């Protein structure tokens, strides 16, 4: 249970969906077990009872068809919120996402728009092993034509859906499974947020730590640990992985001259590589040390707990990378 005035990430997301449904009759939800089951992570719990089966639609296990149907329904003037249970199953719908959602506007010379929102759970950390632990949001950010959001805070869980639904382009929202039970205060009315900018979650002058999604709490904890060692770290939450808000990152790096990126994705070809490459291109001469990366080990996620923990970014690994960056040109 949450303390009075507090809410969970899950409840915040649910409140956002409920508000969207109440506000706009074009909005509806579809996906596997979003209705009678209450959502595989209970995000949509109670919505079927409130809004009925026309607007809270349980689908068969057919990821490609119901994501594609979301695209068609968006073309047809509705505002679908499609839930894919987890990112792991989204591979089955990737053709629809890359070849239709991301391209229809372009292929039609700008005539069509696909105002579709796709939500999915992402990430590891619960011993679900190799097929149920992918962190592919950074990988999805490779695709032009879609936007990729990674709400990491309760305010973003509450606030990002509304602008995503207003956006004429397809928007993918990745919710890290480890965040659903995080609690915190939420103002009433909840703050309005954008889906265009990164946010500085902690100010600091010695080094910049960039992260997003599930590793934000870990990175803040690492910043606290660094503070105890006399290192004042700035923490940037990317929030949006596509299009990337370079400016916020560069502004910080130009002040701190050092950067470590924390990313739950596999290292090679990760979004952290892209950020490192952009810093190389835009702020090379401001760097006092090479940009460091703390990513997941390049291994399908092992079930055994100690191995999974070792595979994921941790406070210890972030602190070590930050210290390496600080002493690099020593």
């Amino acid at each position, binding site marked *: 249970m949450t303390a009075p005035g507090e809410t969970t990430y899950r409840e915040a997301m649910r409140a956002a969906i409920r508000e969207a449904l109440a506000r706009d009759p074009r909005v509806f939800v579809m996906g596997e077990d979003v209705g009678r089951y209450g959502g595989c992570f209970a995000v949509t719990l109670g919505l079927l009872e409130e809004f009925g089966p026309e607007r809270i639609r349980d689908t068969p296990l057919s990821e490609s068809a119901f994501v594609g149907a979301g695209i*068609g329904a968006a073309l047809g003037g509705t505002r679908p919120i499609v839930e894919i249970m987890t990112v792991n199953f989204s591979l089955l719908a990737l053709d629809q996402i890359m*070849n239709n959602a991301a391209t229809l506007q372009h292929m039609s*010379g700008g005539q*069509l728009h696909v105002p579709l929102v796709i939500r999915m759970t992402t990430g590891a950390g619960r011993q679900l092993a190799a097929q149920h632990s992918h962190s592919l949001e950074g990988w999805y950010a490779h695709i032009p034509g879609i936007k990729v959001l990674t709400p990491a805070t309760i305010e973003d869980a509450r606030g990002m859906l509304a602008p995503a639904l207003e956006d004429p382009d397809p928007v993918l929202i990745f919710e890290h499974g480890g965040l659903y039970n995080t609690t915190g205060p939420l103002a009433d009315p909840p703050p309005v947020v954008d889906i265009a900018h990164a946010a500085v979650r902690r100010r600091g002058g010695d080094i910049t730590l960039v992260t997003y999604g599930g590793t934000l709490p870990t990175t803040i904890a690492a910043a606290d640990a660094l503070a105890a060692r006399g290192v004042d770290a700035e923490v940037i939450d990317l929030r949006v992985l596509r299009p990337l808000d370079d400016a916020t990152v560069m502004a910080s790096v130009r002040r701190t001259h050092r950067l470590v990126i924390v990313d739950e994705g596999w290292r090679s070809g990760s979004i952290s590589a892209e950020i490192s490459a952009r810093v190389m291109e835009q702020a090379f001469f401001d760097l006092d040390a090479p940009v460091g990366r703390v990513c997941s080990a390049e291994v399908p996620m092992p079930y055994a707990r100690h191995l999974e923990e070792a595979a994921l970014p941790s406070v210890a690994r972030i602190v070590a990378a930050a210290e390496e960056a600080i002493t690099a040109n020593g």
Partner: protein
Amino acid sequence: MTRVPDPAHGRDLYREMLRIRRFEERCVELYSQTLIRGFLHLYVGEEAVAVGVLATLTGDDNVVATYREHGHALARGIPAGAIMAEMFGKVEGCSGGRGGSMHLFDATARFFGGNAIVGGGLPVAVGLALADRMQDRPAVTACFFGEGAVAEGEFHESLNLAAVWDLPVVFCCENNRYAMGTALERSESDTDLAAKAASYEMPAAVVDGMDVFAVEDAARAAVAAARDGGPQFLELQTYRFRAHSMYDPERYREKSEVDAWRARDPLTLCEQRLRELDAFDDVTRDRFEAEVAAEIDAAIAFAEAGTLEPVADLTRHVYRDTTT
């Protein structure tokens, strides 16, 4: 034998098929001249399918087609000039020159492409129908695809979803017997495609796709049933007279088979039928030929006169332009 067609309407159908035939024949020439590029998939031989089905739709209905969609685009009323300009890569093209032959679009005509992934259009069609139902619009979505798509998982997922939700989709399977070089017998263990539909409790009809009147009759019934009810399946048996695309040496079929089907050319069949009814003569045909030739000449002139989009605009249409 289908009902006796109305003479004037029958001539319209003939003329529409002729437009498509002549349009595509000119496309082949333009392709050799490299004025059209990329892949070019011809519909020659299959015209009765698009013409017959689309004759039964209203302007509020939706159409989803494949990369073999010149016929559908023309029959849906997208101007020949806009289609030709598209294949020339010009701004005046129906997709602004971004799509080409495989991606003809027209939002006003509710023509949702031109999808070049086999099976990729079916889920989209289901969604269009869902949007209509949810918004209480009486529209129907006609979704065209080849028999090769039946082996793709998306076909099954889409039929089932449309059936579970009872949506107004008419699934129009253009069974031209080959998917590139793969004959239906080698791609489906059971070549009875209506049986697949039946396994979703979806009404299905098998139609002579070379007879435009038969197609129209079957489509009219299916469209009416879908409009008031759930999804329908039409297997339209047809044949592609030409290669799969421009690069196909056709090793996989006998010339005799092609000839046998050519004997049932949908234009010839339609003309014969109309002549039996004294509804067609050489004068009519010559007039149609002349009108169609003029239309195509004009379309080519329009395409040639079209403009190339400035290279500076390269990254437009990726996200909605919020700056203007």
